[in-house]
């Protein structure tokens, strides 16, 4: 009887995995079809001219940005988790808010600000571009590292200290190794964001592979060759993730359930001053300056009477942005969580299949947008939907494409936090006869809720500021804040982009704030 039931469950599980993966990876796989007839001449020409440079530029940028975000994000997470200082809660929230500033607007604000310092020529450098990306992407690492530190037991740390380790020793020898999987998950997101960035690198004249994809596509009209380059890029990204998996292995420890969570230590006056000044410097660079400049531009454009030039006004755009964000975030987190739950405990092959679902995040946004259009149009052509309903240009089509792009954020976040769920609890439940489903909903999901909430926050912020997919797939008359910003910035009307940008930034900050409050409530309930 029993083995039979297991087998059925297994089949159901595998069907779920394959179904979800096919659903979300198909737009990218459809494009990869171009490999059946590779564009040899384009590749030869690229190899002769820009490709070697693009590869080395991409590699240097990637190493700099991932290295920088890991150091900055982890240290800030440690400061906020391990020490008590005035304003700790607010600081914990503010440190995540750079995520709410989209790269395509933050990049310009920084280009403009920095060129006042180092000149128009000096500002266009790989290192300044890396700096801007680090400052805007470190919150990915910060969020995951913070959740991991919050999960670590006080007893473990106390034991380490009683064995003679100082604060630094305890950090490097106990906390950091335990948080490694979470930090790696955050770093993987940073790596993919960096690899697929187009807006920021273009502003700083940094010619990466993503930029190369757009060059080939827009320059020669050869979408096939562009997708080949893009899928080569995705291959590199997936390889990186494989490295991240290796890092994650062996880091699988968790707080014993009876153990108390780590309690922050109170600092001396001097310590307070040091921590606060570090935080102030980071926040000034990452948040205060960009937001101040946006406010300044908004006032300027209001005065010039050019602020509100888009039909429907700010409410229409903000409402659409919110509606899309909510629909796509909920869909992505639900599917991502289901996938992570089904993949867990199913071995290496299942994990590999799970990985495939993340390809949409490892490709430049415009390529994913076209893949989704091709996919949805193929369904439309078959006339299978009632009332000759067309998916392309519908809200369903748009939400689907957004899920394709961002499911990785949900899936990776949930997967990393499932790994920290105490295994004995899961095993006991299973031994006591609870089914997979029941174990998942009574043990795993509640235990991983920190991670699930953090992933939801990231999704909400990412989807709020998404541009290329929304631009290409939005229904007629459904314009969002990001579309408005694009319309202004593509004409270099930066001041006119300031108002919608600010609204977008504040919406992002608000959702991040709400979720952090939820996270802290959750932590209090546990301890």
């Amino acid at each position: 009887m029993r083995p039979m039931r297991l087998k059925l469950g297994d089949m159901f599980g595998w069907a779920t995995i394959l179904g979800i993966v096919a659903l979300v990876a198909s737009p990218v796989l459809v494009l990869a079809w171009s490999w059946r007839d590779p564009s040899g001449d384009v590749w030869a020409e690229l190899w002769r001219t820009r490709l070697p440079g693009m590869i080395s530029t991409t590699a240097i940028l990637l190493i700099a940005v991932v290295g920088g975000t890991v150091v900055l994000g982890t240290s800030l997470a440690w400061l906020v988790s391990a020490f008590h200082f005035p304003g700790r809660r607010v600081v914990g929230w503010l440190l995540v808010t750079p995520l709410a500033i989209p790269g395509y607007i933050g990049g310009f604000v920084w280009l403009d600000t920095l060129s006042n310092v180092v000149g128009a020529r000096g500002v266009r450098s790989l290192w300044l571009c890396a700096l801007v990306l680090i400052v805007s992407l470190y919150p990915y690492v910060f969020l995951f590292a913070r959740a991991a530190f919050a999960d670590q037991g006080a007893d473990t740390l106390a034991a380490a200290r009683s064995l003679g380790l100082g604060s630094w020793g305890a950090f490097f020898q106990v906390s950091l190794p335990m948080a490694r999987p979470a930090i790696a998950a955050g770093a993987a997101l940073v790596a993919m964001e960096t690899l697929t960035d187009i807006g920021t690198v273009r502003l700083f004249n940094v010619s990466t592979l993503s930029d190369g994809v757009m060059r080939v596509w827009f320059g020669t009209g050869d979408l096939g060759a562009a997708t080949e380059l893009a899928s080569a890029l995705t291959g590199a990204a997936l390889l990186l993730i494989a490295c991240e998996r290796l890092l994650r292995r062996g880091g699988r420890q968790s707080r014993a359930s009876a153990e108390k969570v780590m309690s922050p230590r109170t600092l001396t006056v001097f310590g307070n001053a040091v921590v606060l000044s570090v935080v102030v410097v980071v926040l000034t660079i990452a948040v205060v300056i960009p937001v101040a400049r946006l406010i300044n531009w908004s006032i300027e454009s209001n005065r010039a009477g050019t602020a509100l030039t888009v039909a429907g006004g700010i409410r229409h755009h903000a409402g659409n942005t919110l509606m899309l964000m909510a629909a796509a975030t909920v869909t992505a987190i639900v599917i991502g969580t289901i996938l992570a739950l089904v993949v867990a405990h199913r071995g290496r092959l299942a994990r590999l299949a799970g990985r495939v679902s993340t390809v949409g995040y490892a490709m430049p946004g415009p390529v994913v947008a076209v893949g989704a259009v091709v996919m949805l149009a193929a369904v439309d052509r078959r006339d299978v939907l009632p009332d000759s309903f067309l998916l392309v240009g519908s809200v369903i089509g748009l939400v689907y494409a957004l899920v394709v792009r961002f499911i990785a954020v949900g899936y990776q976040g949930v997967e990393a936090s499932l790994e920290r769920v105490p295994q004995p609890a899961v095993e006991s439940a299973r031994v006591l006869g609870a089914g997979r489903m029941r174990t998942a909903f009574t043990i795993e999901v509640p235990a991983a809720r920190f991670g699930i909430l953090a992933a939801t926050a990231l999704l909400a912020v990412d989807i709020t500021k998404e541009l290329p997919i929304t631009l290409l797939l939005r229904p007629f008359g459904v314009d969002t804040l990001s579309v408005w910003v694009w319309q202004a910035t593509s004409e270099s009307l930066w001041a006119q982009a300031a108002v919608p940008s600010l609204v977008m930034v504040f919406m992002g900050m608000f959702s991040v704030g709400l979720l952090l409050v939820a996270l802290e409530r959750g932590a209090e309930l546990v301890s």
Partner: protein
Amino acid sequence: MSKFNFRSSKIGTSLIAATLLVGLAACGSSSEDSSTGEESGGQVTVYTGRHYGIETVFDEFTAETGIEVRFTTGSDPELRARLEAEGENTPADIIMTADAANIALSAEAGLLASIDSDVLTEAIPEDLRAADNSWFALSRRLRVIMTSSERVTDAPQTYAEVGDPKWKGKLCLRPSTHPYTQSLVAGLINTLGEDDTRTIVDSWVANDPLYINSDTDILKAIQAGDCDVALANSYYLGRLLSDDAEFPVNLTWPEQAGAGAHLNISAAAVTANAPNRSAAVALLEWLATKGQKSFSDANNEFPADPRVEPKAVLVGFGTFTADTKSVRELGRLNPQAVELLSAAGYE
């Protein structure tokens, strides 16, 4: 050109389509029914890669004709990819692009319909429309030489002179990722041949230009003293001069003794599968005649119909010769231009 054929991957897409539907049934509850479009008649749908000031022009058309205009904006290549994927299901009646190469690529992909209209052929000069009348220019923009009015007295008169070593370290150019740079080089290949064009582009690169990916910012860089000489589209200066009549940049019409200044166009076409073809033709005809002035003025461009008076600020730039002969070739030569730019090490 593009060997990528969306329709050939039938087995793959059928399989994927099936799973997609299952998935949508499972997770699609969050969305509502939307926009399949009301039945035709008084409506025309536009995909436009040109979006600056487009809305007021469409409003004007609606006020005059009672035909509603529904439009979506985006970048030219992406909108073309969407049109191509949608095939017969497309809601688009008209596609509008911000440059010549992109409309030519649409024509080449068989996405456009030839329009037999005396109104259009009478209004738009022959060089500024497709040989088979599958697309029509609506406005003209020129890529010209811009110099600082404060620091430059001997402005270059040709694109080749921009490569004169005396401008080393003082030149601003737009990166080769941008279609305006690509079109300019495609135009030079058409008028001067590939070898001479390569020499010119090499000399620009040798001048160690500052690459700025925005024509407005290029002009502001001249104002700020970051460069003395630059190439930019005429209407950006028109726009800045409308705000500040003293803006310290001079415009020089290049190649006046030769083929004329590089001319690019904003173009529009009726799509091959347009659901509302007659309304589409009506809009196109209106834009080419009555709407010419407001369409061009909205973006400080020259009307495609040379008989229509341009905006006053443009008249101030003086008369000029433009290279009208290259317009139809810009799409065909664009890949060659991209390759040449890459080989020259142009950013």
